[in-house]
């Protein structure tokens, strides 16, 4: 049983949970995730370890409400327990002293990006973070990213805060300023990662993307999470989730993410019928 020791709403539809999981906290490295099952009849969903505190024995998860399980999870409060949390899963981020690293996160992509940036910083790199949101009221963790980055660029699609545009505009700005970039690490919605990879490829900047395919076991057993990288089949849960972004087939990933779309819609509707309609109790 994994107790929720703190919970906080970070932005519209985004919750942060600090969860008691001492064995996972001790082992978690940047880039890794857990798989969570929140009830007896529940499904298994992957969530990134955004932060860990081995002393306190906790890990931090950031969850965006998008469907049945994440809406249901948002009903959990401090003191509640999550029946199943397993991890840390996936390969840790490969970290070197590259020089100047640009960490690019969109929305929930900040969960992996935060933990990765911490590791990259500790290895002695200079860090610029580019974080993108749709609009001002969806922004979270700006302070946290500022604390570990040498520079932070916030972009909003509607220009309500920071720079108007997409994260790729933020990266382009750095390039135009003549900044030398040695490595880009990106996480977020697939179209965003695809755009980032497209841009950095043009400038020959090595880029790593943290992929988010559908997973079940998270240990290489089921094959649900297979992705194509450089023409080869990889299981993202054990071979990844991070891969060379210039070699990832993002279109295939986008397609595979919609395999259960119609059933997922049905599940959310059923859930909302039983709850107050907004999906929360």
């Amino acid at each position, binding site marked *: 049983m994994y107790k929720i020791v703190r919970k906080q709403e970070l932005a519209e539809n985004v919750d942060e949970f600090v969860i008691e999981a001492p064995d996972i906290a001790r082992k978690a490295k940047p880039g890794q995730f857990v798989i969570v099952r929140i009830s007896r009849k529940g*499904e*298994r969903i992957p969530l990134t370890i955004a932060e860990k505190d081995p002393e306190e024995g906790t890990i931090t998860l950031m969850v965006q409400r998008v469907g*049945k399980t994440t809406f249901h999870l948002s009903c959990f409060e401090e003191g509640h327990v999550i029946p199943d949390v397993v991890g*840390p899963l996936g390969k840790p981020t490969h970290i070197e002293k590259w020089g100047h690293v640009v960490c690019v996160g969109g929305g929930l992509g900040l969960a992996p990006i935060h933990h990765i940036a911490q590791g990259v910083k500790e290895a002695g790199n200079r860090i610029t973070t580019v974080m993108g949101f749709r609009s001002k009221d969806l922004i979270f963790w700006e302070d946290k990213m500022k604390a570990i980055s040498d520079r932070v660029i916030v972009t909003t699609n509607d220009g309500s805060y920071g720079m108007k545009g997409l994260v790729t505009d933020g990266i382009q700005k750095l390039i135009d300023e003549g900044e030398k970039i040695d490595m880009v690490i990106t996480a977020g919605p697939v179209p965003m990662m695809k755009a980032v990879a497209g841009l950095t490829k043009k400038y020959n900047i090595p880029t790593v993307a943290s992929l988010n395919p559908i997973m079940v076991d998270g240990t290489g057993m089921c*094959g*649900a999470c297979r992705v194509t990288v450089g023409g080869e*089949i990889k299981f993202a849960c054990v071979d990844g989730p991070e891969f060379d972004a210039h070699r990832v087939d993002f279109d295939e990933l986008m397609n595979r993410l919609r395999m*259960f779309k119609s059933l997922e819609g049905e*599940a959310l509707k*059923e859930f909302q019928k039983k709850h107050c309609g907004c999906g929360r109790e």
Partner: protein
Amino acid sequence: MAKKEIKKNRIPVPERPAEERIKDFNEVKLGYTPELAMEEAKRCIQCPTQPCVEGCPVRVPIPQFIKLIAEGKFVEAARKIKEENILPSICGRVCPQENQCEGVCVVGKIGDPVAIGALEAFAGDYEAKVGIEKPQKDEPTGKKVAVVGSGPGGITCAADLAKLGHSVTIFEALHEPGGVLIYGIPEFRLPNEIVYRELEILKDLGVKIKLNYVIGKTKTLEELREEFDAVFIASGAGLPYMLKIEGLNLNGVYAANEFLTRVNLMGASRFPDYDTPVYVGKKVAVIGGGNTAMDVARTAKRLKGVEEVYIVYRRSEAEMPARVEEVHHAKEEGVIFKTLTNPVKFIGKDGWVVGMECVRMELSEPDESGRRRPVPIEGSNFVLDVDTVVLAIGQGPNPIVMEGVDGLEVGKWGQIVVDPETCKTSLEGVFAGGDVIHGGSTVIQAMGDARKAAAAIHEYLLEK
């Protein structure tokens, strides 16, 4: 001794009719009644050579337990079996008896072999109804053993060592114990209830089970070696092989493990009451000819909306590795067999599989190994109209448990190499058995390995 007349035909195990059973996931076989069991048990001639016992990897005292059933001593029969096999209700249902105990039964030479498996399941089920005897335990030895994996191998080794007084902890990656018995083999063949029931013995013996615990990730094998006096690895063969042909990653194409895990472990047949979905179209092709393929096909047959299910296998039916009974049940349930057929390409439309191009095969002359190799017949390609495909072409050991370990000898297919007598690995104090050393085998083989390993571990701990 006066020769008794031998009854050639076995008493059939009552089963539900195919039309009825494909509407749900309840067990297909109803099992013997006490009367039927006694009648079948009397077919055993208690032959002096008892080849059946040799045919069983754990040496169940077959003639003895069958005699007890014939005498109406059902509970005693179950306890007799449990001297060697703690999971009679499971093994009686899933062992490939035709290749093991029943395959060598003397009665089988003139008629049907004695239904050893069905009798074993009967005895196990009967004892469970009247109350299972609590197992005896030796005085605590103060030694600690870690077991990786809670499939039949892990369960058996843990039970044996706990009985000998060692303190045993099982580490299991999933949120439920049981291994393939829970996530792989469907409920219509082996109800989860029965697995839970047979797992009770671990609780009675004080074995600790840590779920959601991946060795290689949550803790490494090295850390286990520091914390425990010995380690037994029974992590199975949970790495699915993929057919590397065009269109593999189209939506609607699954590996058997994903398909079965969604339905068996996660309850997808009860979606949306259970949260995990499983997508199936109208026409499902299952590629492969083993138990896994039969399980997938019969599972698909039971899912809403499915109209046709094909087994696509590149050899002929005679070469199918599946248990004879599974093939028979699959046919009864309307699964269509396309043997001597091999897929060459998955055809997609808008990202979804809409067909499968296949080629017909023929069997060549036997090669050195005596197996007739299937070879494609040129120009025989055709398209099978399907919208869901499940690959059941085998699996190998999952390497995750070995992550970050030096000095563990591993073979060509990723299997852990052991001394066949003791199940000792190349690492001091580390033993392994079951699918992780064979790369896919049987429940009873895993249990046989586990018993061997338990004996060797016990000896090792006493010497240590």
